[in-house]
């Protein structure tokens, strides 16, 4: 038996660090049934189920069968509602975007998935402008992952609307070799994982050659996050990076997170009108 040593599994460096610690413990165990003792846990950000799914996927690769024991009933319920646990519960309030796995080529299916779940009446009533920016942001994130992931690992997605906080959150996770892995493959070693994330989040950064560099979409997204006072969070191997509003927080995790998770959290009560002052003219656009 191993233990999940945190009371709150949130999208913080502590939360991702706890998942990284679990991965480290599991990687030192052999095949077979492994109990993960979770009685300390009193809060779980539901959209972190996508990161947990990557953990489970890695364990399955080691022929381990995980059992989460000692979970509070409300947390079990959350993880059943979003499909992380088998025996899916009906999501009475329809505030969940259930855990779903997409291949890197599934950008269209991902777009349809987000449209479908956000169109439910229980989901936040966002302004048209905000909803468009949200869709644009997550589409850019998915496209960026598809283009710049050097491994063919699928992307696991999970989302949650928190009505009290008026916060909509979505997490995309893959079990690949992380941003630092892509960086080192192209440029060699000598950078900390959190700095590799910071580099990847800048305009024009790319590990591809010959194409127009990526990063333009991320620049648009980061500006949106600033305006919305939302959060954009990346955990990748030992790196943790968070933009909240315009502030950046970076940290190194003690153990490597099993891949990359990108979290987007937005304030749904935002009534700003986006993109109203910068229309281009069709007549001279080329």
């Amino acid at each position, binding site marked *: 038996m191993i233990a999940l040593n945190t009371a709150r599994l949130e999208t913080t460096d502590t939360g991702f660090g706890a998942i990284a610690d679990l991965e480290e413990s599991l990687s030192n165990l052999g095949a077979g049934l492994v109990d993960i003792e979770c009685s300390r846990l009193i809060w779980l950000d539901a959209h972190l189920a996508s990161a947990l799914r990557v953990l489970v996927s890695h364990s399955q690769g080691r022929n381990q069968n995980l059992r989460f024991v000692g979970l509070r009933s409300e947390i079990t319920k959350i993880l059943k509602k979003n499909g992380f646990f088998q025996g899916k519960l009906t999501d009475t309030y329809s505030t969940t975007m259930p855990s779903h796995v997409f291949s890197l080529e599934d*950008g269209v299916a991902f*777009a349809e998935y987000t449209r479908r779940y956000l169109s439910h009446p229980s989901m936040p009533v966002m302004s048209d402008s905000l909803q468009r920016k949200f869709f*644009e942001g997550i589409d850019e994130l998915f496209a960026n992952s598809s283009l710049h992931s050097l491994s063919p690992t699928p992307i696991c997605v999970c989302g949650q609307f928190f009505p009290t906080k008026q916060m909509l959150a979505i997490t995309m996770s893959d079990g690949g070799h992380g941003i630092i892995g892509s960086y080192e493959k192209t440029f060699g070693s000598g950078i900390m994982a959190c700095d590799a994330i910071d580099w990847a989040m800048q305009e024009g950064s790319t590990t591809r050659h010959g194409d127009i560099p990526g990063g333009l*979409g991320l620049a648009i997204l980061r500006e949106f996050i600033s305006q919305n006072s939302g959060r954009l969070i990346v955990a990748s191997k030992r790196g943790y990076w968070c933009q909240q509003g315009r502030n950046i927080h970076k940290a190194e995790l003690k153990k490597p997170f099993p891949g990359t998770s990108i979290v987007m959290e937005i304030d749904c009560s935002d009534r700003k*009108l986006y993109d109203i002052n910068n229309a281009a003219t069709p007549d001279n656009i080329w």
Partner: protein
Amino acid sequence: MMKTVTIKISQVIGSGYGVSASDGKLVYNAIANEISKGNRVLISFENTTRLTTAFLNAAVGQLYGEFSADKVRSVLVPPEDAEDWQLHRLKLVIDRAKVFFSDPDSVSGIISSEVGGDDDS
């Protein structure tokens, strides 16, 4: 004789989701095909509800790597049915592609100034 052919993005990719680079490549192929036939091209955004810069890079940005900017300007007529934000994204991608293909090392400089004033309240 040169004619103008309308290429409707949503028809070429089979949905309103212009999000993936691979679908952008389909649009690029359709445009390049008409150019090679000596036609002008009108790109229609009708029913295109979602759009990424990755898609636009592949669909139109790469044209500037294949053809000169003057050539592109002479064969692409003003796009139609695009919302303001879609035109803005298109302009960002075009400006960046022009700079990249003329001087690949100088791309990052143009973006911050254009994106920095992206949103307004």
